[in-house]
């Protein structure tokens, strides 16, 4: 009997080929969409974490309140001991200090007079101490367009776009004008040794990356840190753990209302990322939900037509004495086979463009020129285990559910009624 039914299934394309194709198309789209959204979202989260928020971030309360203005007069003091304490308490995290500052980049001519000036967004990170992970975290080595990495104090990188605007290149001397932690004028001479393009519009407009110690010296910020960032050792943001640590640290602060008291925030508490995180977490469910519904409707319609066509067969099978339950089961089995086949085909088909988008991405840099979002201008898909699994949900659920529903017609109708429908 099974062999007989399989034969029929294979020969009747409206029962096999078309539903398999519908399922495959739906599953392929699901796979592609999932990997794409997964890629964009995790890129967004990763970029934010690496360039801006850390997985957790410690600042003073007042700094946190005015963060966009880089209020370095509100920096954390005694950054060294503070880091050591945190590092000891949370060995699974790695803590780094950073200072952001605004300033004016002054390019002198041969006579030493100002030739060109431009505002810069400075970032002081640990570039020079051996074993520092910061250069890798910001992907600096791979982002260098011209020149090289800073190797000794006084050497900086500027963004390629800014360098072009100012018509400077590696080897050029430059002066940065800013204000110290105490509000007086700061001035420091640097050598531009390279240009970078991070692929993040917000960073590429006018960034300057300097070694943290240089910046401390320039801004009178010895042993302070504007921001103390913590990263989980494997580089993956874990929301629950981060939120728990934040709560723990903040609860241990003894003078919590003091504006210079330290306050910790998780990635989700910064840059409006909470919604994104929640969305990212539910995205898989949302996508599969949408596709289950959409495909079920398509398949249901297809099934309805196929079902009508099949009333002939069902009527005959009832007439020769097959049990209703047996017919129903065989229809369900058929749908499992169709769903499985379609899902496998769909995953295979969907992975091709997903893989392409993972490797090559789509450059949306032009659209991002004025964006301050921490997101790469090349959007990429990201294929994960979930990408493989997600297809099964709409693939199998919609076929089996569709058939299960359509098949109840066998039970709803009187046998003689099913029979009458043959005689049209």
């Amino acid at each position, binding site marked *: 009997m099974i062999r007989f039914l399989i034969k029929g299934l294979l020969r009747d394309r409206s029962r096999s080929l078309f539903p398999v194709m519908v399922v495959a198309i739906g599953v392929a789209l699901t796979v592609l969409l999932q990997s794409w959204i997964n890629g964009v979202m995790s890129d967004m989260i990763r970029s934010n974490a690496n360039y801006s928020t850390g997985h957790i971030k410690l600042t003073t309360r007042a700094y946190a309140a005015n963060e966009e203005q880089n209020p370095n007069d509100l920096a954390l003091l005694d950054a060294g001991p503070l880091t050591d304490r945190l590092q000891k308490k949370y060995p699974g995290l790695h803590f780094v200090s950073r200072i952001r500052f605004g300033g004016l980049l002054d390019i002198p001519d041969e006579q030493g007079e100002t030739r060109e000036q431009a505002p810069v967004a400075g970032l002081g990170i640990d570039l020079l101490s051996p074993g520092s992970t910061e250069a890798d975290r910001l992907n600096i080595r791979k982002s260098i367009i011209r020149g090289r990495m800073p190797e000794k104090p006084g050497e900086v990188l500027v963004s390629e776009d800014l360098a072009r605007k100012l018509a400077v290149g590696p080897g050029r001397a430059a002066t940065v004008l800013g204000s110290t932690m105490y509000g007086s004028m700061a001035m420091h001479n640097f050598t531009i040794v390279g240009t970078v393009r991070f692929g993040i519009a917000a960073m590429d407009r006018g960034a300057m990356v300097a070694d943290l110690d240089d910046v401390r010296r320039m801004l009178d910020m010895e042993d302070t840190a504007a921001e103390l960032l913590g990263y989980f050792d494997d580089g993956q943001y874990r929301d629950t753990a981060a939120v728990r640590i934040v709560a723990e640290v903040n609860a241990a602060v003894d003078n919590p209302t003091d504006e210079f008291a330290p306050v910790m925030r998780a990635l989700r508490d910064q840059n409006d990322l909470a919604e994104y995180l929640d969305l990212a977490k539910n995205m898989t469910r949302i996508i599969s939900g949408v596709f289950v519904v959409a495909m079920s409707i398509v398949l249901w319609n297809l099934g309805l037509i196929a079902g009508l066509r099949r009333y002939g067969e069902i009527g005959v099978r009832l007439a020769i004495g097959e049990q209703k339950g047996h017919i129903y089961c065989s229809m369900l089995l058929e749908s499992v086979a169709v769903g499985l086949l379609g899902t496998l085909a769909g995953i295979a088909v969907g992975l091709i463009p997903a893989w392409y988008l993972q490797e090559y991405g789509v450059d949306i840099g032009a659209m991002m020129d004025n964006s301050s979002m921490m997101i790469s201008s090349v959007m990429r898909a990201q294929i994960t285990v979930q990408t493989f699994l997600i297809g099964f949900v709409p693939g199998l659920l919609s076929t089996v559910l569709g058939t299960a529903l359509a098949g109840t017609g066998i039970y709803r109708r009187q046998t*003689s009624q099913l029979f009458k429908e043959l005689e049209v």
Partner: protein
Amino acid sequence: MDKQIIVQTKRLTKHFPVGGGQFTALRDINLTFSKGEFTGVVGPSGSGKTTLLNIIGSLDAPSEGSVTVLGKPVEALTHKQAADLRCRHLGFIFQTYNLLPVYTVYENVEFPLLLLDLSAKEREEAVLQAVESVGLMPKLKSRPAQLSGGECQRVAIARAMVKKPAIVLADEPTANLDAENSHHILQTMEKLNTKFQTTFIFSTHDDKVIQYLRRKITLEDGEVAEDQEAGIRDQEEEG
């Protein structure tokens, strides 16, 4: 020939719910069919022919009265038992053939045997014999779409006969066929009827069929108007 009773209806009545009330399609039908009968149920459209055949075929249940098929009370059968009765003892032939389009002639005829516990060899023998008896051996591998209407109906007869059922129920088997094919079909059924002592019950309003009948039951408005033994042809043959 002994008069073994195969089907018996007693005070059979069938109502259908229509709108708020009900419509009586069959009223107080008392009929007895014996083994080997070749009987037609005739009557105008809507007189209840199909309804009667469906109830005898255990596809539908009577509203009142009783119907006994091969000693089993149809009104008391569960779905499972009814399916079992059909599976072993009843064959159906439809006006519109209802062959399964994706299967060959051979496979269509084999289909009813798949539900019975038969070996592949037994099935093959039965199928070939049935196809042979309707004269379609050359078309064994054809699909229904490649056959004429008459040939399709002969396949349907082979399908109904392949398990050698006690009763074959045929609802207007010649309605879609031309004169020549109708005669051919009736002659085929007549031959099988004689050979296997299978009881044939038709519904029809086709005059060409009526001349083959050995018994003619006329329904009018759901009631038996006439029950005539021995058709003209039958007497000719005997004479």
